[in-house]
């Protein structure tokens, strides 16, 4: 708390916005992937997807707690007490899980982008965020390895698996850029080192790392960047998920679980 107290109002607001985007990304991908529990293609994958989803929701919880300390709020309220339009996850996470290739494509895009972002956050001047990002990064290494294995497995598989993967990558590519959508308070964040690099630099680093892997699979990918509203757009798919994930909180007010 003393660390947060040292920040002035504009810095706190900017940091709160950053934490909200990080937590919402992890919560929403965790909930989408938990949809596979019980119905993943093979038993081992059922366990793996569920474990990864549980990790992500755990990361979201820790990030919401950091945010709640900063804004003197209740982490459960932030997680489940908001309208669908108030969530700030990247457009990549607006889509329903789709088929297995679609989920695998999204997970690869998300994990690789998240890895670039976490490496930067581990150097944040906000010590509690840097420590948490450093810890999360160690767990995400397993996710990254797993996402990479599925990408290669489906890419090397005969049609229709490889076609479905390529289609999913092309469909998701524009929305994947939005993980690096500019934040309103970004200038404030970078000026104070709360974010160690601007989003455009992180975006460029991510592009450099994934293009050589994805283009042999999906063909030439459009040269595009994130858009200003990349974290504001919501879809029918997400509104459905929002109703699902807030069901307990909505049915019993003040419930703890």
């Amino acid at each position: 708390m003393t660390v947060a107290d040292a920040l002035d109002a504009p810095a706190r607001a900017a940091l709160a916005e950053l934490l909200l985007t990080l937590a919402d990304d992890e919560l929403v991908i965790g909930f989408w992937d938990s949809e596979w529990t019980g119905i993943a293609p093979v038993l081992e994958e059922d366990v793996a997807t569920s474990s990864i989803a549980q990790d992500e929701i755990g990361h979201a919880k820790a990030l919401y707690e950091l945010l709640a300390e900063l804004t003197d709020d209740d982490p459960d309220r932030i997680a489940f007490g908001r309208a669908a339009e108030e969530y700030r996850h990247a457009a990549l996470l607006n889509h329903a899980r789709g088929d297995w290739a679609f989920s695998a494509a999204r997970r690869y895009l998300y994990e690789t982008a998240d890895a670039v972002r976490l490496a930067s956050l581990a150097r944040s001047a906000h010590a509690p965020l840097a420590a948490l990002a450093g810890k999360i990064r160690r767990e995400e290494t397993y996710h990254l390895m797993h996402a990479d294995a599925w990408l290669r497995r489906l890419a090397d598989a005969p049609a229709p698996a490889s076609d479905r993967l390529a289609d999913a990558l092309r469909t998701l590519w524009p929305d994947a850029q939005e993980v690096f959508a500019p934040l309103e308070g970004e200038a404030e964040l970078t000026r104070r080192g709360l974010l160690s690099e601007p989003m455009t630099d992180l975006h460029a680093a991510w592009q450099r790392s994934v293009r050589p892997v994805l283009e042999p699979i999906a063909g030439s990918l459009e040269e595009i960047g994130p858009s200003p509203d990349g974290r504001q757009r919501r879809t029918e798919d997400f509104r459905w998920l929002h109703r699902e994930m807030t069901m307990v909180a909505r049915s019993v007010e003040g419930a703890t679980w």
Partner: protein
Amino acid sequence: MSATARPAAASDAERRIWDELAAIPDPEIPAIGLVDLGVIGSVAVDDDGAAWIELLPTFVGCPAIGVMQAEIERRVGALGVAKAVEVRLSFDPPWTSERITPEGRERLRRSGFAPPVMPPPTEAGSGLTELDVLDTLPPAECPYCGSRNTTLENPFGPTLCRAIYHCADCRQPFEQMKRV
């Protein structure tokens, strides 16, 4: 790093708290105590007689964290050496596999869990952040027959911190506490 698992206590009260924490079993792997697992970051009794205990979660989303917190509060509270018990979560320093004590690794092995594989001593740093580090780790040692002729079946197991292996020599599946 096992030396950091239990620093010299400054007071008798702190020493008794460390002893009590060492006797609290991990909720998911009861064969090992919290101190041997390395999840106790620090213990301090302040001038007002309040005990401050720092808990370092093995995994950020570990669902056993709440159980550990409650059990620490209950058991340390019952010692009667502190007026209040405050358990705080911390990720600084992060819990890493190196925090498990040699005794803890032995206890894991005896209860059928392969302890986390450690990187070769020549490797610089311990940052498990790059894929190649994970790929170059030697296979887990079978806790039943000691063989290294084992294969990783699934890096994800029944809890966040466990992976599933198979031993080609004694033909047993077994679990490993994952290296992080």
